[in-house]
């Protein structure tokens, strides 16, 4: 029976929703991180497409000027291939992947432990602090006076501080919640998340300390450059790959309704990943001042990383067993399968690239960026897409609408990431061969033009995929049918939620 609101007496009116500047409702931090992450995805891939185009038209698209200011002196502003490429990787890793990773961790943790998130408001605040830091650092990249333009982690100290504070807050929320759980042996995803969070914070603190040390006591440039290279590799192996694996280990059993195929294999993959990720980072220490054997051990570690990735992918594939038909349409499991495929291909390419003979051939070429694109825009992005497809209805309490946007999201990102990554790998091989043959710059540029156009087109396609994901989420929020999903809102003595909630595949 419909109710006419005009007939309601004052005491029948439902209480008004209170506005809180720091929401502490369940999942508020996870939801905020998720929405912001998709915004960053569009920004990052858009910058990436421009960056790839700048390799072909460096001077046409270049913009540089300088000005004098009273206190800071001369300030340079520069939009060039170097600054745009740095901006792209920073936006991708700190903007898109890190926000998505925080969203994943904060969503999955209470659902696995059965314990309501501790410090929900603090985690929500971390979202603002982290993104202020990333946005400030990203802007600084275009002012060479204030920021380096290396691969990662060269933001000015003030923004480094914001990022570290944000990381500390998320770490605090994670560990307090996990410790409040009565589970003796938490599910494998939490092992990946826990170490990834600690390693990311440690690596970022190391690079910030190097920057501060350089500023205070003028550290040797080579030492600082080596630390930055080491940290960039640590962030890649521990954070980007680790969170992707943790997310897949949660999403695949939930989406298939199957039990995890082998706890032993999953745990073995975690142990090997935990041990070898740090060793692999030693391979980034390439300088005559570093003993060659140390770099070789690092390269061997990169080759050995194949083992944990193979074990993890095999476990997940065995878990899907019997439910392969679910991977046929765009959705959680299709995204997860694509992530696994990219993960495996990236690791194989990384292992090949770690061989000394290959390194001497492709050093300083586009090769290095290829596997990074495949890992970040392929493996990690699809793992987060799988999480988003699973989590968004539960966070927004709405069903996905019946649109083609999910297909566009999947195919545009898949084709874009594959084309961009593989064309850069191919460009690196061709470039290395041309240099070895003593080709002139004109010959090299002429040969590589089409590879660079392909990379630019691929990144533009991936950007379109990100835009489709964002639009899809917006349409879900505004027009989709309401659906009820449960929350982990109470903390019973035995650690298992009594509200018997978290509906179908929570």
């Amino acid at each position, binding site marked *: 029976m419909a109710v006419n609101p005009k007939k309601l007496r004052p005491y029948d009116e439902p209480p008004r929703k209170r506005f809180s500047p720091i929401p502490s409702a369940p999942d508020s931090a996870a939801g905020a991180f998720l929405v912001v992450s998709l915004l960053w995805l569009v920004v990052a891939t858009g910058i990436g497409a421009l960056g790839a185009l700048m390799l072909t038209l460096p001077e046409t698209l270049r913009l540089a000027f*300088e000005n004098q200011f009273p206190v800071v002196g001369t300030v340079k502003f520069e939009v*060039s291939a170097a600054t745009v490429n740095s901006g792209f990787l920073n936006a991708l890793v700190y903007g898109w992947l890190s926000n998505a990773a925080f969203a994943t961790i904060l969503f999955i943790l209470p659902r696995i432990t*059965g314990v309501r998130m501790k410090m929900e408001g603090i985690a929500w605040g971390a979202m603002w602090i982290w993104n202020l830091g990333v946005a400030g650092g990203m802007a600084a990249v275009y002012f060479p006076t204030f920021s380096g333009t290396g691969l990662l982690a060269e933001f000015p100290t003030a923004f480094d501080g914001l990022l570290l504070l944000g990381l500390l807050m998320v770490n605090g929320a994670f560990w307090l919640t996990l410790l409040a759980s009565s589970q003796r042996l938490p599910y494998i995803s939490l092992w990946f998340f826990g170490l990834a969070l600690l390693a990311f914070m440690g690596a970022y603190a190391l690079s910030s300390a190097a920057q501060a040390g350089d500023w205070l006591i003028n550290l040797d440039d080579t030492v600082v450059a080596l630390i930055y290279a080491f940290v960039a590799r640590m962030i890649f192996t521990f954070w980007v790959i680790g969170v992707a694996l943790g997310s897949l280990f949660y999403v695949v059993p939930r989406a298939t309704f*199957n039990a995890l195929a082998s706890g032993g294999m*999953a745990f073995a993959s975690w142990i090997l990943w935990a041990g070898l990720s740090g060793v692999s980072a030693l391979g980034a220490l390439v*300088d005559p001042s570093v003993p060659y054997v140390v770099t070789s051990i690092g*390269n061997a570690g990169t080759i050995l990383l194949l083992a944990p990735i193979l074990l993890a992918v095999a476990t997940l594939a065995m878990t899907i067993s019997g439910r392969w038909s679910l991977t046929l349409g765009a959705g959680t499991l299709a995204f997860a399968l694509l992530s696994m495929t990219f993960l495996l291909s990236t690791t194989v390419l990384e292992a090949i690239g770690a061989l000394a003979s290959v390194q001497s051939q492709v*050093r*300083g070429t586009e090769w290095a960026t290829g596997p990074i694109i495949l890992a970040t825009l392929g493996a990690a992005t699809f793992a987060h897409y799988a999480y988003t497809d699973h989590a968004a209805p539960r966070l927004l309490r709405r069903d996905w609408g019946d649109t083609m946007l999910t297909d566009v999201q999947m195919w545009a990102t898949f084709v874009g990431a594959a084309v961009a990554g593989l064309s850069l790998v191919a460009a690196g091989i061709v470039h290395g061969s041309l240099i070895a043959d003593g080709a002139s710059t004109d010959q090299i540029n002429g040969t590589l033009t089409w590879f660079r156009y392909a990379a630019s087109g691929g990144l533009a396609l991936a950007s379109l995929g990100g835009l489709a994901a964002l639009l899809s989420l917006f349409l879900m929020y505004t027009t989709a049918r309401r659906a009820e999903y449960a929350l982990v809102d109470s903390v019973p003595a035995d650690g298992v939620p009594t509200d018997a909630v*978290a509906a179908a595949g929570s």
Partner: protein
Amino acid sequence: MTVHTPIETRSRSIPPWAIGITVLIFLVGGVYLAGNLSGENPPIGGVPSASGSAAGGPNAQAIIAEAGCQSCHGEDLTGGVGPNLHGVADGPTSENLQDLYADHPDDWANIWIAGVDPAVSDPAMRNGMPAFGGAPYNLSEEDIATIVDYLKTLE
């Protein structure tokens, strides 16, 4: 609606084939390491370590790093979008600089890097190479001479 439950695990054991593949990968890694115990790393970012005694030394490395030369010429300056800078002591490797080299065999590299001389400021000729003698880089003649001295030591 189903009750929330932890994710179940079908088995706790590791299948023999998984152990076999892991051992095989470790053997490959071990063989690789055994064959690569000695050698020498190239310089990071294309420049020798600060302890090196190359002409120009750490000062040249700092100028090169700040000017962003490696973004086009590659991490170790062996070529990227821009040409290989190793071996420039014998003259330019690019065809568009041969006339400049013929006219200025001693200081062609200084003129080219500065890029402020009308003879080398045509955008078509520069092909994306910034004029480091102008804004926003404003490298002094001494800075450019330091870079050139250093580049001539790269073989």
